[in-house]
């Protein structure tokens, strides 16, 4: 869902740029230096996700997983997804330079909102409930992204409005697929590494517990 350079009105580009800078500023404020490796590695993971294609009907789409990015990263999803978009634009020619702000807002803001809305609930739920909520968060984030794309187009000219509507409805299957894949991913994470879905302070507690557990296990026989 990269809008290309040259399609949007200058006002929309500037508005998107300002919002993107504000979001980046907020995201970077919540990014202490010792969180940078984890955020960078996750940002790379979401970049790789965009290379994974899943079939939808006769065609296939690539995963975006922005809802999951919001759940795992919170506000720092903003810079993390921005970096991915920047690399895609510069090295693969997806999207463009002047629309980078708009594209970042369109993809990262829904991710952050999905994180803010669902993170608390997901962290308190059992894996099954967490999976359902994760699926809703994934579909919600894509729906919002599509809506934002449609709005950016509609604001740039009345002639785009039919196309904007079409964009929204054409993306409904993609929302469903993203929701299903996100649900499965959240289920797996909730089972395997629930600390990932916890807010930062709870995650620290959890890591402490895990360290204690590992220290205990170290005394026992290796399980291969």
């Amino acid at each position, binding site marked *: 869902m*990269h*809008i*290309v*350079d*040259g*399609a949007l009105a200058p006002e929309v580009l500037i508005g998107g740029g300002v919002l993107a800078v504000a979001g*980046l500023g907020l995201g*970077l404020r919540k990014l202490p*230096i010792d969180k*940078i*490796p*984890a*955020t*960078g*590695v*996750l*940002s*790379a*993971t979401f*970049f*790789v996700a965009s*290379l*994974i*294609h*899943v*079939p939808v*009907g006769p065609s*296939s789409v690539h*995963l975006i997983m922005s809802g*999951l990015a919001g759940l795992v990263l919170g506000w720092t999803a903003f*810079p*993390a997804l921005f970096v991915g978009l920047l*690399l895609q634009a*510069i*090295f*693969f*020619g*997806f999207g*463009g*330079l*002047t629309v980078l702000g708009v594209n970042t807002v369109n993809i990262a803001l829904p991710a952050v909102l999905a994180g803010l809305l669902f993170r608390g609930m997901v962290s308190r739920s059992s894996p099954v409930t967490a999976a359902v909520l994760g699926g809703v968060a994934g579909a919600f984030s894509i729906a919002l992204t599509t809506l934002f*794309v449609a709005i950016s*187009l509609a604001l740039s000219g009345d*002639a*785009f409005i*039919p*196309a904007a509507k*079409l*964009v929204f409805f054409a993306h409904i299957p993609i929302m469903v697929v993203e929701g*299903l*894949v996100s*649900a*499965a*991913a*959240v*289920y*797996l*994470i909730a089972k395997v*590494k629930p600390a*990932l879905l916890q807010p930062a302070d709870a995650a620290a507690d959890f890591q402490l517990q895990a360290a204690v557990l590992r220290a205990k296990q170290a005394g026992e026989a290796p399980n291969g």
Partner: protein
Amino acid sequence: MSHLFGHDQPLKVQTGGGDAPSLVGTFDPRVRVIAACVFAIVVVVLQQIEFALGAVALAAVTMSLTDLPLRVTLKRMAAMDGFIIVMLVMLPFTTPGTTMFSVLGAEASKEGLMHAVLIGIRANAVVLMMLSLLSGMTPVALGHTLYRLKCPPALVHLMMFTVRYISVLHDEYHRLRMAMKLRGFKARNNAHTYRSGGDLFGMLVVRSLERAERVLDAMKCRGFSGHFPMIDDMAFRRRDGVFAVFFLALIAALVVLDRIYVFAY
């Protein structure tokens, strides 16, 4: 494929041998980054198809001075998101104006068609210039350049980490994918496929986070104190200045002529 994401090599297809940089590659990366940005901003405000075509020509000349593989670059330039193509096709039918032709009762206007063509040309000009000026750089060099251009260090460090681990995680993805294939997995339109996709991605996230913990521990072991040294040998020389002035003059000419044309007619 995974070589496309190597952190210490340009993200273009490796041509093998011949390490001497192309003409464009010898200019100061800072100048190239700024030139690409200015070019993009100017091109998206061009109103006349003639001058937008001039911008494409300028980008094509720049491309011919790089050693990017022609076919791959042109393919990347022309690749657009499906919905953008749909939007461009719909534009003639949704813009009011003089009717040119009609398809199944829907009338296409000349203004709409011109608008769609203009958008297509502008988009391709920016992408081609961006690929020509920037994609020959290694991602690490891009990080250093952005750092020297006063981007927030946290953002630059984040980008460097991302770049470093894309190749690693892409390999990891292929390993997991291979394991699925060996067990007879085939992607189809069913819940099993989506579930497996989710498991695959979830596993990737879990493993990458565990990797990040090890990375941070290793960094701390080596005395990481919250600052990365950024060592580069960027130098702004006279020829970089000449290139900058020449390039700016060309795009200034484009935009001024475009404005004059708009006001004159």
